[in-house]
């Protein structure tokens, strides 16, 4: 089987049952994507397939031989971090770090969805969703963090969204009510 992962070509002779996640971790040495639940519930295996975030554990490698796959290793490098990676470092968006590669891949895919104008469950207007912390939480609900670093994860994502300069990811400012008002 042939694969294109992080812009590189790979060839691997793997069992037909091999998930895309196990292909990366067990056969190609790409251990950045993590196995948490192996059932699509935790999101630790999140990677980008043709630019869309998916659970690597819930799909077969054999089905993705013609696809462009990007894992956490393809987003950035220690010398040149992806903006989302840098923001997670800056905001301390983790404790143990196990869910982090999935959180970062998911956040990158999620912001692309927002830029395409895709609504979410919490969008008041399906055809013109605004972007705020509630939207980040809802759209990231497929990624669990058992250390519960969620506040810092949301801070990191909000910063990258604002810095992208795209009107659709410009955070909606919600002014706190004035004291005594």
């Amino acid at each position, binding site marked *: 089987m042939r694969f294109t992962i992080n812009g590189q070509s790979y060839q691997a002779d793997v069992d037909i049952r091999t998930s895309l996640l196990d292909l990366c971790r067990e056969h190609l040495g790409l251990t950045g994507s993590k196995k948490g639940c192996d059932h*699509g519930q935790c999101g630790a295996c999140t990677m980008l397939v043709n630019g*869309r*975030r*998916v659970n690597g554990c819930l799909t077969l490698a054999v089905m993705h031989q013609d696809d462009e796959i990007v894992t956490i290793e393809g987003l950035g490098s220690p010398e040149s971090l992806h903006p989302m990676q840098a923001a997670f470092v800056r905001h301390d968006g983790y404790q143990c770090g196990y869910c982090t590669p999935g959180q970062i891949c998911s956040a990158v*895919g999620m912001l692309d969805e927002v830029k*395409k104008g895709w*609504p979410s469950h919490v969008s008041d207007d399906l055809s013109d969703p605004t972007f705020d912390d509630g939207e980040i939480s809802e759209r990231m609900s497929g990624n669990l963090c058992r250390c519960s670093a969620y506040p810092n994860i949301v801070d990191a994502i909000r910063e990258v969204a604002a810095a992208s300069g795209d009107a659709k990811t410009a955070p909606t400012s919600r002014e706190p009510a004035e004291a005594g008002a």
Partner: protein
Amino acid sequence: MKTFTYEKATTVDEAVRDIDRAGAKFIAGGTNLLDLMKLQVETPDKLVDISRLPLGEIEEREDGGLTIGALVPNADLAADPRVIAKYPVLSRALLAGASGQLRNKATTGGNLLQRTRCYYFYDTAMPCNKREPGAGCSAIGGFNRILAVLGTSENCIATHPGDMPVAMRALDATIVTLKADGDKRRISIHDFYRLPGDRPDLETVLEPGELITHVELPAPPEGRQVYRKVRDRASYAFALVSVAGVVKVADGKIASAALAFGGLGSMPWRDGAVEAALVGQAPSDAAFAAAADALLADAKGYGSNDFKIPLARRVLIATLRELTGE
């Protein structure tokens, strides 16, 4: 996971030809099938990969409706501007289900065929009539908090887990299929699902090897559309109770109503008696209570899911207030 042979279909005709024996299954998004294969609840000996067939388009029809390809991902269907404009209840139902990652993979056809999340169906160490007819039901008398109160049988009380099919029942969708012999058929979603009876393993009227190719929505119904879902967490959880509602009010009276329910039934639930209790009535809590009485007349709790009956009543009344309010 049990091993299997794998074939990738390049045309729809080839796909139905490749399903040449019992034990062969189609795979598209795979998010539910592979989950079940890992637990050996599903053990197909052959997978026919249909994920690259040209069934990924949404097209407008002359009658004002939409034809949705079976491979349109849930995420794309929910975000389609035509769906948002004409069928917001469908968009809302899709967005209330699963996670962003799963909605990117899960397909329209696959979602219709999603299996129950009954704990005992998933646990191969426990008897389950849906996995193995005649083995017995562990859920009756067991942990059944998430299970059904409508349409159950003495053999199975599993709940259909879907959100999308609930909206599609309220919208009177039609499911278009292709059989191995080349015959196409169109099945109303109201005739698509089967009650468990004594064969809870048979969940739809699809024949072995029959492929869902499209879902057709008729022209959008008049009136307001709402999808309300009540669940244990605010996101990424199955429904305890959900309601897809389309209601039109004219001259102070309910002119038409379509109401379908998730989390309650052995299949996505719709009962004409609920709508009959509403049409012609002025919106009022008394009329809404009569609709809830009609919905729940035959409801049967099994202990830990008893709470769903009063919950369904309150969710229906709240949804009707929203559908008919100022």
